[in-house]
C-alpha cells in the first residue's frame, strides 16, 4: 500500500513542478474523462488561441477528487460530476467563474442550469458539460428467453428479488457506486432519493441483502464489455456506457442485442461540469477555454462524437438527428420529469453508507 | 537401507582377503560422448592397504574414483568389493565412503551433526551414534570443536571433519579425492603422516586419487599410475620410482635423464647401448628384455649421477659436459649441464657438509657418470 502512496507522492511532485514551471504563459492544463471530447476540439482551440493545451484524462471521480483535495493539482480545467463538484466547492476547491469573460453563457440550457444549481448554488463555479442517467442495460434476447414477461421498463429488473433470482444465472450486476444505487433504490421504494436517515440506510441494506445472492458482481466499468459479449444479462450502468455496450455488441456481430432503460420509477440524472480549480495556474486561459466549449457548434460536435446529451440548448440544431432522437440520450420531457439528482452527502452519512455497502458486498 | 557393514577394524592385517583382492576392478570403461575417460582398467586392491591412483588432471583417475563411489555408471566392466558386484548399486547403498576434494561438509550442520549424518541414515540408535561420533572425533583430535560450524574451522580441521564423517560408517572402502590438495605445504606434510596413522588404526582400505607424486609416495602402499584412461603401471612407491616401466612413468614420478640409443651388445643381464646424445657407450644392468638393434631409452635419476673434475676410470656411462646452472636448495643442490652433443642433463647432489670449499661452479667442465645398476633401460 505504501508503495502506491509513494508513487502517488512522486506523481504529485512532478505535477506540481510542471505547474510552477509553466506560470502564466500560453498554456492550459485540462483534466477530462477519457473518451469525452471530439477529435478536433482541442486542436481547433489551440489553433484559434495559440494556447498550448496539455490534455490529460482520468476515469474516476474519486481520483480527480483526491488530486483536487490534495491541492496544487496544476490543472486549469477539470470535469467533476455534480455531486463531487458540490462537495469540492464546499472544500474551497474551485474558483468563482468570471461571467464577463464567458460570452457564450447564454447558450446553456436553462432547465439544466437550474438542476445543476442544486449542487452549485447560483451556478457560480461550474459550466454544465454533458449529462446522462443511471439506469440499466440488458441483453434483449437472453432476457426474453429466460423470462418472456420480464419487466424491462422497471427497476424490478434489478430490485425485485423474484425477478433478479430468475435472471441470476444469466448474470446480473450493480454499479460499485453506493450513492447512486442508494438513490435509485430509494426512488424505487418510493422514498427520498437524497435521504440521509440511518433508517433508510438500514432499509437499503436489508433490501439489497435479499437480492445480493443473485448479484454476480459490483463494478462500474467491467459491465460494458461483459454486456456486449453476453457474459452478463442485466447491468445497472451509466447511459453512455450502456450505449457503448450496445454499439460494441453490434460491432462484434455475435447476435447480442443490448438495450438501455431509464426505469419508469425514475432514475438518477447526473451532470458533468467544467470547473476551474481555485489554485489553477492559468485561470485566464481556462476562461477562454470554457467560453470556447460553450459555443453551440463545438458542443454539438462533441455530442455527435461521444453520444452524450450536452447542456448547451443552442447546440441542438447542430446535433445529429441520430443522437437527438435517441430517447436513451435525449429522453422525453415526461421521462425527464421523473429524474432526480444525486446530491452530495455528509461525511457521516457517507461513512454509514460505505460501511453498509461493504457489508452487503462481502457479507461482513 | 544400506546393507550391514563389517567392521574391519581390528581383524587386520592377519586375515587374508577371500580371493586375493578385496576390491576388484574388471575391465572398467567409461565414455562421455566420444571421449573415453577410463579405458578398460583392471585393478586389484588389497584389504587394508592405501592405494594411490596417480596421474595428471584429465587422466581419468577421478572418473574411476566416481565409478567406485557409484556416482558414475561404467560403460563397460564391473567393480567387486569384498566379492559383491557393485553394478547397479546406487551410492547410498554401497559400503563405500568418499572424502571429497572440497570436503563437501554440510554448512548448516555442526561438526558433530556432520559426522553423525551417515549413521543417522542407517538408523543407528542415538546412544550408539553419539558414542561413535565421539570416538571418531577423538581419533581426529576434534573433540573440543564438536559444536562448531564448518565455516568456523581452519582448512586442516575441515579436512579432519571430512575424514571423520567418511570413516565413522566403517566403510569397506574409503575413497579420498585429492585429500591434501587444499592445504598449505607444511600442513600437508603433517596431514600425510596423520592420515597414515589413522588408516593403520582403523584398518579401512583407502583409495587415494592425487596428481602429486610426492603425496602418492608418502601415503601409499601401492601406486597405480594412470595416463589417458589407462593404468600404465602398478607397484610399490619404490618399484615405481626405481623401476619405471615406461618413459611416461619415469618422467611423471620424479625427474629423470633420458638417453635414446640402440642396443649394440648384450651379455648376461647387461646391455651396451650406443647413444649419440651421450657421446659414449652406455652400460646398463636393468630392463634387459631387448634384442640387438632395438631402439631403447636409458633412464637415470638425477641423484644417481656423480660429478667429477677428473675423468672417471670407466669408459662407459661417462659424459663430458659443462655446468650451465646451479640451484642451491638447502638439503641438496641442483645442477644443469650441457653435454658436448648438446643434450641437457640434470644432477642433484646432497649437501652433506655445511660448507663445501670444493664445489663445482657454473661454466666449469666436468664429467658426469653413473654406475650401471643406477640406470633403467626402457623400450617404450
Amino acid at each position, binding site marked *: *500500500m505504501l508503495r502506491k502512496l509513494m508513487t502517488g507522492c512522486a506523481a504529485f511532485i512532478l505535477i506540481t513542478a510542471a505547474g510552477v514551471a509553466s506560470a502564466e504563459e500560453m498554456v492550459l492544463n485540462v483534466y477530462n474523462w477519457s473518451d469525452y471530447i471530439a477529435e478536433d476540439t482541442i486542436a481547433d482551440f489551440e489553433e484559434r488561441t495559440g494556447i498550448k493545451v496539455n490534455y490529460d484524462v482520468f476515469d474516476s471521480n474519486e481520483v480527480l477528487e483526491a488530486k483536487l483535495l490534495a491541492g496544487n493539482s496544476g490543472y486549469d480545467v477539470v470535469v467533476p460530476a455534480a455531486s463531487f463538484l458540490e462537495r469540492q466547492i*464546499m472544500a474551497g476547491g474551485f474558483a468563482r467563474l468570471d461571467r464577463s469573460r464567458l460570452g457564450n453563457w447564454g447558450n446553456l440550457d436553462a432547465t439544466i442550469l437550474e438542476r445543476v444549481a442544486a449542487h452549485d448554488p447560483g451556478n457560480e463555479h461550474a459550466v454544465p458539460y454533458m449529462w446522462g442517467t443511471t439506469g440499466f442495460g440488458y441483453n434483449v434476447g437472453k432476457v426474453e428467453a429466460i423470462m418472456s414477461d420480464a419487466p424491462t421498463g422497471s427497476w424490478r429488473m434489478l430490485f425485485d428479488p423474484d425477478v433478479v433470482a430468475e435472471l441470476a444465472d444469466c448474470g446480473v450486476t450493480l454499479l460499485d457506486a453506493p450513492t447512486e444505487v442508494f438513490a435509485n433504490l430509494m426512488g424505487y421504494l418510493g422514498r427520498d432519493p437524497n435521504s440521509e436517515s440511518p433508517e433508510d440506510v438500514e432499509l437499503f441494506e436489508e433490501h439489497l441483502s435479499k437480492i445480493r445472492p443473485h448479484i454476480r458482481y459490483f463494478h462500474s466499468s467491467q459491465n460494458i464489455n461483459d454486456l456486449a459479449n453476453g457474459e452478463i444479462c442485466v447491468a445497472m450502468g451509466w447511459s453512455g456506457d450502456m450505449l457503448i455496450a450496445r454499439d460494441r455488441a453490434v460491432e462484434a456481430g455475435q447476435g447480442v442485442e443490448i438495450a438501455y432503460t431509464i426505469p419508469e420509477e425514475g432514475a438518477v440524472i447526473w451532470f458533468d461540469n467544467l470547473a476551474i480549480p481555485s489554485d489553477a495556474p492559468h485561470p485566464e486561459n481556462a476562461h477562454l477555454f470554457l467560453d470556447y466549449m460553450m459555443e453551440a457548434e463545438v458542443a454539438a460536435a462533441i455530442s455527435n462524437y461521444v453520444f452524450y446529451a450536452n447542456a448547451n440548448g443552442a447546440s441542438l440544431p447542430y446535433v445529429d438527428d441520430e443522437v437527438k432522437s435517441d430517447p436513451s440520450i435525449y429522453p422525453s420531457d415526461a421521462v425527464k420529469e421523473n429524474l432526480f439528482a444525486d446530491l452530495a452527502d455528509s461525511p457521516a452519512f457517507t461513512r454509514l453508507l460505505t460501511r453498509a455497502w461493504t457489508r452487503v458486498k*462481502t*457479507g*461482513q | 537401507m544400506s546393507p550391514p557393514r563389517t567392521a574391519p577394524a581390528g581383524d587386520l592385517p592377519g586375515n587374508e582377503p577371500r580371493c586375493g583382492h578385496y576390491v576388484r576392478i574388471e575391465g572398467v570403461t567409461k565414455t562421455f560422448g566420444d571421449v573415453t575417460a577410463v579405458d578398460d582398467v583392471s585393478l586389484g586392491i588389497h584389504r587394508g592397504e592405501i592405494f594411490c591412483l596417480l596421474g595428471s588432471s584429465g587422466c581419468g583417475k577421478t572418473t574411476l574414483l566416481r565409478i567406485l563411489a557409484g556416482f558414475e555408471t561404467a560403460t563397460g566392466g564391473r567393480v567387486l568389493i569384498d566379492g559383491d558386484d557393485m553394478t547397479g548399486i546406487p551410492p*547410498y547403498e554401497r559400503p563405500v565412503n568418499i572424502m571429497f576434494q572440497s570436503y563437501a561438509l554440510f554448512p*548448516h550442520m555442526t561438526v558433530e551433526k556432520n559426522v553423525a549424518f551417515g549413521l543417522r541414515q542407517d538408523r543407528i540408535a542415538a546412544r550408539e551414534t553419539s558414542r561413535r561420533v565421539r570416538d571418531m572425533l577423538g581419533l581426529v583430535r576434534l573433540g573440543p570443536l564438536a559444536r562448531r560450524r564448518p565455516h568456523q574451522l581452519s582448512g586442516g580441521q575441515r579436512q579432519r571433519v571430512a575424514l571423520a564423517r567418511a570413516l565413522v560408517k566403517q566403510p569397506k572402502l574409503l575413497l579420498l579425492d585429492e585429500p591434501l590438495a587444499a592445504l598449505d605445504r607444511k600442513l600437508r606434510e603433517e596431514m600425510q603422516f596423520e592420515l597414515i596413522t589413522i588408516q593403520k588404526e582403523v584398518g579401512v582400505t583407502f583409495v587415494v586419487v592425487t596428481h602429486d607424486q610426492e603425496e602418492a609416495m608418502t601415503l601409499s602402499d601401492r601406486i597405480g599410475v594412470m595416463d589417458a584412461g589407462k593404468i600404465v603401471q602398478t607397484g610399490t612407491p619404490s618399484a615405481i620410482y626405481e623401476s619405471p616401466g615406461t618413459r611416461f612413468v619415469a618422467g611423471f614420478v620424479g625427474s629423470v635423464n633420458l638417453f635414446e640409443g640402440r642396443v649394440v651388445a648384450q651379455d648376461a643381464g647387461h646391455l651396451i647401448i650406443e647413444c649419440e646424445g651421450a657421446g659414449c657407450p652406455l652400460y646398463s644392468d636393468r630392463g634387459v628384455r631387448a634384442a640387438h638393434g632395438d631402439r631403447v631409452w636409458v633412464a637415470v635419476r638425477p641423484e644417481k649421477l656423480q660429478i667429477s673434475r677428473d675423468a672417471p676410470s670407466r669408459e662407459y656411462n661417462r659424459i663430458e659436459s659443462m655446468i650451465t646452472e646451479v640451484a642451491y636448495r638447502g638439503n641438496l643442490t641442483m645442477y644443469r649441464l650441457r653435454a658436448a652433443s648438446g643434450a641437457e642433463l640434470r644432477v642433484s647432489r646432497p649437501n652433506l657438509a655445511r660448507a663445501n670449499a670444493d664445489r663445482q661452479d657454473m661454466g666449469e667442465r666436468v664429467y658426469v657418470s653413473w654406475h650401471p645398476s643406477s640406470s633403467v633401460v626402457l623400450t617404450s
Partner: protein
Amino acid sequence: MRWRTFAIAVPYLWLLLFFLAPFAIVLKIALSEAMLARPPYAPLFEWGPDGSLAVRASLQNFLFLLRDDLYWKAYLNSARIALISTAFCLILGYPVAYGIARSSPTARTVLLMLVILPFWTSFLLRVYAWIGILKNNGPINNMLLAIGIIDEPITMMQTDFAVYVGIVYAYLPFMILPLFARLVRIDHTLLEAAADLGCRPLRAFLTVTLPLSLPGIVAGSLLVFIPAVGEFVIPALLGGPDTLMIGRVLWDEFFANRDWPVASAVAIAALFLLVIPITVFQRLRADQEGA
C-alpha cells in the same frame, strides 16, 4: 574516509527520503481529524493568535479501527489470502527454481529469461488477460464444454480462486528468482556427499537442499507475501465482491469516504502488521545463517 562515510550514508539517505519521510507524512495525517477542506484533514500544529503553538493530535482514528470489526477482518482476510498465495507460489516456484538451477548454463539463461519475460508486458494487461481466460465463455470453459466434462460453464471469475490465480501468477517470478539464486549456489557435491553417506535422493533433498535453500524461501516468501497483503488491483479485477482485503478497505476510506486520516491509520496499521512477520523472518534467517 570521506568516501566511506558517503557510501554508508547512501542507503540511510534512501531510507530517509523514500520510507521515513512518506511514513512521517502518513502518520501526521493519521493523527489528525478529517474535515471538508483542502487538504481534507485538520492541521496537526496550529499557531494560536497569541503566538502559542497548539498541537491537536489524537489516536482517535486508530481507536476507530478497533471499534469496527471490518478492519481486523480485512487484515486477517488479506493475511490469509496472502499466506495461501505465498504457499502456492512456493509449491509451484520451488520445482521451477530447482529445475532451472540444475539445468545447463545455456538452458538456464533461456529459462530465466522466460521467467522474467512477462515483466515486459504491463502488469495490468496481464491481469486483464486472465479475465479473458477465466471468464464463463473463455477458453478453459469452452474447452471443458467441448470435451463434455462439464455441461454448464464453471464460474471462475469473481471468485477467490481467480484472486489466487492472479496473485500466484503475478508474483511467481518474485518467488522463483531468489529461490533460484540460492539453489544455484548450493554445491552439488553436498548432495553427492549425502548420497555417499547413505541418503536416498528424497531424504538428501529434505536434509540438505531444503535447509540450505531456506534463506531463498524466506526471501521469496517475503517478496510475495508483503505486496500480496496490500494487493488491490488483482482482487478488484478478478475477485468477487465478497473478497474483503485491506487494499479495498483502504481505497474505500480514501476515495469513497474521503477520510484521509482513517485511511492513513489503516495504512500504518497494515505496515505494522507487516513489520512483525518481517522481523520474525529476519530473526529466523539470522539464526539459520549462523553467527
